[in-house]
């Protein structure tokens, strides 16, 4: 990490250098964000049998994530075609998982919120709960696999990426679950395990982020340049400021303060900090992705 980079960002496609990933923008970042926190909230609420959390998580996924995806597509009217190749594409598998989540989630939620006179019973009920839970779990981390599949961008080419998405989704879900319980007056009855999970996930994410950067630094030159941009370059304010300082450190400190001084506004502030960090991380993951430079072996300086 010492000295200037040997290869610069190419100013255009006829120039030599690293090409920045410009295809997937903030709409894809939003879709991943809503998918992660919505599915995370749904799963945490399913495990804790919290009906409101399940409903909010479900709506975040079905409205927030799906709308963002549709707005991004060049041909949204053909969206259904994205499900055609689950045998090879993680995007297609994600569509299937979201579809299963939509159906099974609705089967769980509709009888709870409306008097339909019907609700799944016995084995069917168990199957619906399992399918809803597993599809939510898949939605929590599959965006990491979608990015990870692109070996073209070395910064994403690590198995730690889906894991990072999963732990961030779990953290977002736990934070939102705690916030919802606080806002609906159930703050005093929050399970201790949920609060402990929040602490554990904050520390886990901090460690995972460090591991991710340390691991990827030894990767291809494009990944090293990305790490440099995150720590000292144009994305340092977002990464160090929003992802690390606000999203993890401030959230952790505020959570510790909250354990001694209970206040609703503090819980909302914790949630805001955590969600800002979560969204900022997804955005820098997308924006800081670089393609490797292309050149003849004889002229390689990397």
């Amino acid at each position, binding site marked *: 990490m010492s000295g200037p980079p040997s290869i610069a960002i190419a100013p255009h496609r*006829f120039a030599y250098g690293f090409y920045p990933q410009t295809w997937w923008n903030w709409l894809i970042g939003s879709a991943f964000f809503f998918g992660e926190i919505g599915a995370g909230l749904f799963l945490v609420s399913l495990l804790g049998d919290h009906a409101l959390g399940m409903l909010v998580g479900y709506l975040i996924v079905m409205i927030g994530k799906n709308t963002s995806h549709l707005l991004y597509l060049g041909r949204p009217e*053909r*969206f259904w075609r994205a499900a055609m190749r689950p045998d090879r594409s993680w995007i297609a598998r994600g569509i299937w998982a979201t579809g299963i989540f939509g159906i099974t989630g609705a089967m769980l939620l509709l009888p709870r919120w409306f008097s339909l006179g019907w609700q799944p019973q016995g084995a069917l009920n168990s199957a619906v709960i399992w399918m809803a839970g597993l599809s939510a779990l898949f939605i929590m981390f599959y965006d990491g696999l979608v990015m990870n599949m692109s070996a073209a961008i070395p910064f994403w080419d690590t198995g730690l990426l889906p894991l990072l998405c999963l732990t961030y989704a779990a953290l977002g879900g736990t934070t939102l679950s705690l916030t919802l319980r606080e806002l609906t007056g159930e703050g005093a009855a929050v399970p201790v395990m949920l609060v402990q999970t929040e602490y554990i996930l904050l520390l886990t994410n901090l460690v995972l982020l460090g591991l991710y950067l340390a691991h990827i630094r030894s990767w291809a030159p494009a990944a090293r340049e990305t790490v440099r941009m995150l720590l000292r370059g144009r994305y340092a304010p977002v990464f160090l400021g929003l992802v690390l300082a606000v999203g993890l450190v401030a959230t952790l400190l505020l959570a510790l303060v909250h354990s001694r001084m209970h206040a609703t506004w503090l819980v909302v502030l914790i949630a805001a900090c955590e969600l800002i960090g979560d969204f900022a991380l997804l955005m820098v993951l997308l924006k800081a992705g670089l393609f490797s430079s292309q050149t003849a072996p004889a002229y390689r300086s990397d």
Partner: protein
Amino acid sequence: MARLGLVIDLKRCIGCNACTLACKQENGTPAGIHFARVITREVGTYPKTRRTFLPVLCNHCDDAPCAQACPSGATYVREDGIVMADKSVCIGCRACAVACPYMNRHFVERGLLAHGYSGDGVSPLEAIKFTDFEEGTMTKCTLCAHRVDQGLEPACVVTCPTDARIFGDLEPEDGRLRQLIRQRKGWTLLPEAQTRPSVYYLDE
């Protein structure tokens, strides 16, 4: 089964970008989209400097990551190894562009086909050529499949004034392309990406 490809002799390339222009003329690509381009780089330190040229185009990879990433099946590989994109099936998710290590996928933005290079409506030629594109979808080099199907060579190959591009079948071990690759130690771009490109380069 054939595996069509190219061998590009960098010793012959003079960086004139005739291939870039021939491709644009043949395919009528909209503004900002170049199926073929020449990456230029300055190497050395003053006063011993030189410019190197690297003509690039879709590598028509044998193990095409763009085809694997495509969730709709719009990107597919023909029997002869040419990687194609079906605009009527493409949903515009740009997964292929993110998956291509060579940055050779292109997105036809909304409104791009409404104006040509003059910026003042489309010319009669553009009006014909632009029917091959659809806004909101991905497009790519087809190795001039429409010419190849007629027994012709791609436009970039026939235009190259220094004969730096050699087009043919990579499959036969005793074929011209394979012999050149063997004799002159041909290499491909980003071999670490493990895409098995069908475009080889010679610089020895």
